[in-house]
């Protein structure tokens, strides 16, 4: 396969996200008038470095997946920019966007739903080649077999249909499709959430192997904090559509700055009974507010154990805290 990048690739930001916002309109009534918005993603700003894995964590419904899809422009962003290798992909349209597509791919959460049940595995993996590459039929077949081998599947499986495979194998098929065009960047949208625990490790190891071989950059969306700790270089934490904290993995897990991150991390069980017994959990009260009507000021203030009056009045700024750490909290630091 082409481009053994990683080592030679220049360090720096591959992707730069500035104020990315995605609002879904809420329509009602006979005339389908817009009566409100769901602010699924609100003012997301961060960079993803070449060759790194950025973990994006948060509870379900916080906008992680929407963020991932908006970054790839599978959803039209409401505001903000996404600079991929310096090109603003939110400004591209039609053919120009289509030409950028091979550089950034996606791995989906549900390995069942992301494969067309009426296509053979071979034609599923060959679809990106059909669309984006000029190859003869024989070249395509050879490439499909190469890709199947790369993700640890028997190349003879190309003639079978997705329903004949297990969940882990289907996820591998999805991964083979994602890497078919030698992308630089892959959004992994909870790629292991639907899998058996014993299969999760295999798939994560495969993702790490592929990252090393092809110099891939990942945005790894997950709610599994221990898996993110294992795979990510840096971690971003989201709450109700906003990023609350971003930093190097070890720093975040050792000393979280934002009260939400602290609560989240305190919920991770520790695989050592002695330590586990002494683990103190921060239990958050109440439910996540509706993204259709988020709280004023800091969105976390309704559940924050240390909230002050200021938190209800002022939206906390996304501030750099040194050491590559960012946080959106008035009281941090």
């Amino acid at each position, binding site marked *: 396969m082409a481009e053994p990048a990683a080592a030679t690739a220049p360090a720096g930001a591959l992707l730069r996200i500035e104020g990315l916002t995605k609002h879904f309109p809420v329509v009602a009534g006979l005339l389908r008038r817009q009566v409100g918005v769901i602010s699924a993603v609100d003012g997301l700003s961060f960079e993803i470095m070449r060759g790194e894995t950025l973990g994006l964590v948060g509870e379900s419904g916080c906008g992680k997946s929407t963020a991932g899809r908006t970054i790839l422009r599978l959803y039209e962003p409401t505001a903000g920019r996404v600079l991929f290798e310096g090109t603003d992909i939110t400004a591209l349209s039609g053919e120009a966007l289509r030409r950028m597509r091979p550089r950034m791919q996606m791995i989906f959460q549900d390995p069942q739903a992301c494969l067309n049940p009426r296509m053979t595995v*071979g034609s599923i993996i060959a679809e990106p080649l059909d669309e*984006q590459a000029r190859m003869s039929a024989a070249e395509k077949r050879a490439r499909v*077999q190469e890709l199947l081998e790369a993700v640890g599947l028997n190349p003879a499986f190309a003639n079978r249909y997705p329903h004949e495979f297990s969940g882990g194998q289907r996820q591998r098929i999805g991964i083979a499709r994602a890497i078919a065009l030698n992308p630089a960047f892959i959004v992994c949208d909870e790629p292991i959430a639907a899998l058996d625990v014993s299969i999760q490790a295999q798939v994560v190891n495969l993702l790490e192997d592929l990252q090393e071989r092809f110099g891939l950059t990942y945005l790894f969306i997950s709610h599994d904090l221990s898996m993110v700790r294992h795979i990510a270089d840096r971690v971003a934490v989201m709450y109700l559509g906003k990023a609350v904290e971003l930093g190097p993995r070890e720093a975040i897990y050792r000393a979280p700055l934002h009260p939400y991150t602290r609560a989240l991390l305190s919920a991770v069980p520790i695989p050592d009974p002695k330590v586990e017994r002494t683990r103190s959990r921060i239990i958050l009260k109440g439910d996540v507010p509706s993204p259709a009507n988020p709280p004023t000021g800091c969105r976390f203030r309704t559940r924050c154990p240390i909230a002050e009056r200021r938190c209800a009045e002022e939206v906390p700024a996304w501030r750099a805290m040194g050491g590559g750490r960012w946080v959106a909290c008035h009281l941090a630091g």
Partner: protein
Amino acid sequence: MTDAARAEAEAVLSAPPRTLWRDVWRQFRRHRGAMAGAVIFIAIGLLVTLGPQLHDIDPTAPNFRARNLGPTWAHPLGTDNIGRDSFAQLLHGGRVSLAVGLSAMTLSILLGTLIGILAGYFRRLDGPLMRLTDLFLALPLLPLLLVVIMLFRDPLRTAFGPETGIFLLIVFVIGITSWMQTARIVRGEVLALREREFVLAARSIGTRQHRILIRHILPNVVSPIMVAATLGIASAIITESALSFLGLGFPPDFPTWGRLIYDNKDFIQSAPERVLWPGLALALTVLSVNFMGDGLRDALDPRGRGR
């Protein structure tokens, strides 16, 4: 790996990719009902296309010396009240009924699928196209048919000749008034499919819209289309009969299955077989088509395909 296993693996690798239609055919042949349906349908088809060559009595010629006959060697199904040969009428009528059924169904399925897919996939077209569908559903069909046929019968007759003209008109009229159910069903399916992740995956690859429609959406709505198509043939044949009965369809001396049933219904007490035979032919055709559609639908779904 042993040598034998390796050779086998090589063979598998170099084998051409499975083609959809060969798989479908293999599965179709396993479906007993579908095969029986296909055999009956082909038999009926051959009978009505080649039959009139063998049994070459003019179905429209009256013979007053041979009225109301029972089955004889010359007239296997007897004759009617003005001495026309019932078997010849059945064969000729089948030609027209089958042709009308198949072509009207094709037209209505094409229209319904096209409108359903466009409405389901493109949000902006959804409103207008579905209101159009509602409009057609709300139209009082019979008065509409009356007007259409009154207006266009004579121009079409002069343009294409009396039989072809009326055939085109009837196919068009039935097709244009029976696509709505298909469109609604297809739209519903497409709405659900559009949000599936494999469509999103195709978009992230940069697949063009029309290719997404053809490659991902259309194959996954085949099942409801198949069902609508098989039912459509039956209802098209029946609608044609109703039109002929009202004097709006083919001319009175031109046999179709529906026409035969209506013409002979007055003699149902004295000679029930004159209604029975065309009725049986109609029922067999509809049934065989339904079985074929059932088998085809199963064969097109890879999940049902045994290995």
